[in-house]
């Protein structure tokens, strides 16, 4: 299903396809008409996608068909061995993790996992982890440290799950612990925000030496809808909240909250997943290379300094 602002584009694309089909089957030369339509399409695309509002970007970040953590692991890594469970309470399908090989190097990966259809989304709780998910993530961090493997985290969650059982099992406690555990890694740690970076539930696996973000992904202390519900007393004002929160990739880069923007194909990652994956691969390779010269304590200090410097105040 197209997003609201994609509709005119999809309509024009359908019209062009129809005309092409007609031209082929009837043998009528429509190349002149088609040329005009294709130019109009190109213009419409550049107008729409070249000036995306922050709220439109949020919708792209949530678009069905956008590559999920498992899509990215499957697409740019090999030999993936998924590891389940938190060794304490249970298995949380909202967080996936395991061992894999990236460009010859063995790495430890973890990420929030959205479903690729409604059924899977329900099973994975729409990528909103319970405490078990964060304990699983911390277990992966332990593995990365013990075996000296780079730790790669993919962020894509609306937020940690706000529910009774999550509170009973210490949601706040595990998020704090996960932040601390990741900060203590003595291996290269890279966090990549694929889609949604919803608050503490995202940050729990976001304490990287470098934090990368896909061009249309968002990262904030609260979702635009929840922010609108509180400050405007109306969740429908989410578009205004998205603007005010400055949650887009370019905003975050200028604030120093992310270090690098990974470009998406025109119209968003879901329109061309293969190109998206190849862009992620390139960025990850370059970032790992940047960190390659640092020893264990230097990596720890580098990460400490990165986060120590964040904040704006007057003396």
């Amino acid at each position, binding site marked *: 299903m197209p997003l609201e602002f994609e509709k005119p584009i999809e309509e024009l694309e359908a019209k062009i396809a129809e005309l092409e089909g007609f031209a082929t089957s009837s043998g009528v030369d429509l190349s002149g008409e088609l040329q005009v339509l294709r130019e109009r399409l190109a213009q419409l695309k550049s107008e729409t996608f070249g000036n995306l509002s922050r709220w439109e970007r949020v919708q792209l970040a949530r678009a069905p068909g956008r590559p999920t953590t498992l899509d990215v692991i499957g697409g740019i890594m090999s030999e993936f061995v998924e590891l389940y469970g938190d060794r304490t309470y249970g298995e949380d399908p909202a967080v996936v993790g395991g061992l894999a090989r990236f460009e010859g190097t063995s790495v430890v990966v973890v990420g929030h996992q959205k479903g690729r259809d409604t059924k899977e989304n329900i099973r994975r709780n729409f990528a909103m982890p319970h405490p078990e998910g964060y304990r699983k993530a911390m277990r992966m961090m332990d593995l990365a440290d013990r075996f000296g493997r780079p730790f790669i985290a993919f962020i894509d969650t609306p937020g940690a799950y706000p529910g009774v059982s999550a509170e009973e099992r210490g949601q706040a406690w595990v998020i704090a612990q996960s932040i*601390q555990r990741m*900060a*203590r890694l003595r291996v290269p740690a890279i966090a990549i925000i694929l889609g949604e970076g919803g608050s503490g539930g995202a940050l729990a696996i976001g304490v990287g030496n470098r934090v990368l973000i896909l061009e249309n992904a968002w990262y*904030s202390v609260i979702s635009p809808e929840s922010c609108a519900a509180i400050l405007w007393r109306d969740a429908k004002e989410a578009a205004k909240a998205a603007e005010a929160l400055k949650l887009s990739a370019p905003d975050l880069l200028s604030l120093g909250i992310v270090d690098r923007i990974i470009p998406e194909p025109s119209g968003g990652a879901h329109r061309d997943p293969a190109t998206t994956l190849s862009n992620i691969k390139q960025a990850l390779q370059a970032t790992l290379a940047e960190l390659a010269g640092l020893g264990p304590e230097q990596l720890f200090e580098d990460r400490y300094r990165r986060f120590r410097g964040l904040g*704006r105040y007057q003396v």
Partner: protein
Amino acid sequence: MALERLFRRRRAQGEARDIPELWVKCPKCDAQIYKKDLETNLHVCPKCEHHLRLSADKRIAMLADAGSFEQITGLKPTDPLGFVDTEPYPKRLERYQKEAGRPDAIVGGRCTIGGIESVLLVMDYAFAGGSMGSVVGEEITRGIELAAQENRAVVIVSVSGGARMQEAALSLMQMAKTTLALDRLWAQKLPYISILTDPTTGGVTASFAAIADVILAEPGALIGFAGPRVIKQTIRQDLPEGFQRSEFLLKHGMVDQVVDRRRLKETVARILKLLHPRTVNHAG
């Protein structure tokens, strides 16, 4: 009580203007409490033991040894995002600053607690519901770093509705910054006690407040990650009785003790003495 009778008589005569000066109504049991009694009882209702909210200044007076507190905080907030909702953030800040009488939602300083050299950091609910933005995060971080430098213990009293929306992702980053700073403290084996008071939720709970050496909570305090309203909306069910209260957290293993405010200082001082490296040879 004679004064209570006097109060009743006055009210009967329609002279209620003394109420705000002399009497406070307990929000839990509705008892009318003589204000001076409430003060001497550290704002705990003498009838039902409900812990009323305590100002940051009174917290400091209650925990720091008399005359020992020396303030270190004073950073001022800015408007890094140019945030405007129904009003611009700078206008809100101005109002909060007037209401709370301080630049942001935290006050802290060097002091001794039961004779132990400490850094005491206290959040202030009167400022924007104790929300954490860059200033709160930076002051907490600096306080912890100072303690690490000067071999002091750290005591943080939290009261917070969560992270400050108007500083968006920068507020979020304070969770990481404050949490990371604690490693500097632990590297030198200096104790950190986190005191959770009503309410402590959101980004404060999910960062420095939840990973102390010892976590104490005041009775009946609302403590959690998500607020009860958000949870109720999500699960579309009524929440269990006592959910997210201190006693609930104790039962679920998340806090070390629920401590009556009137025993809080002696409890904190005892723990600091037991843990602080300098006191290791002073046993007995």
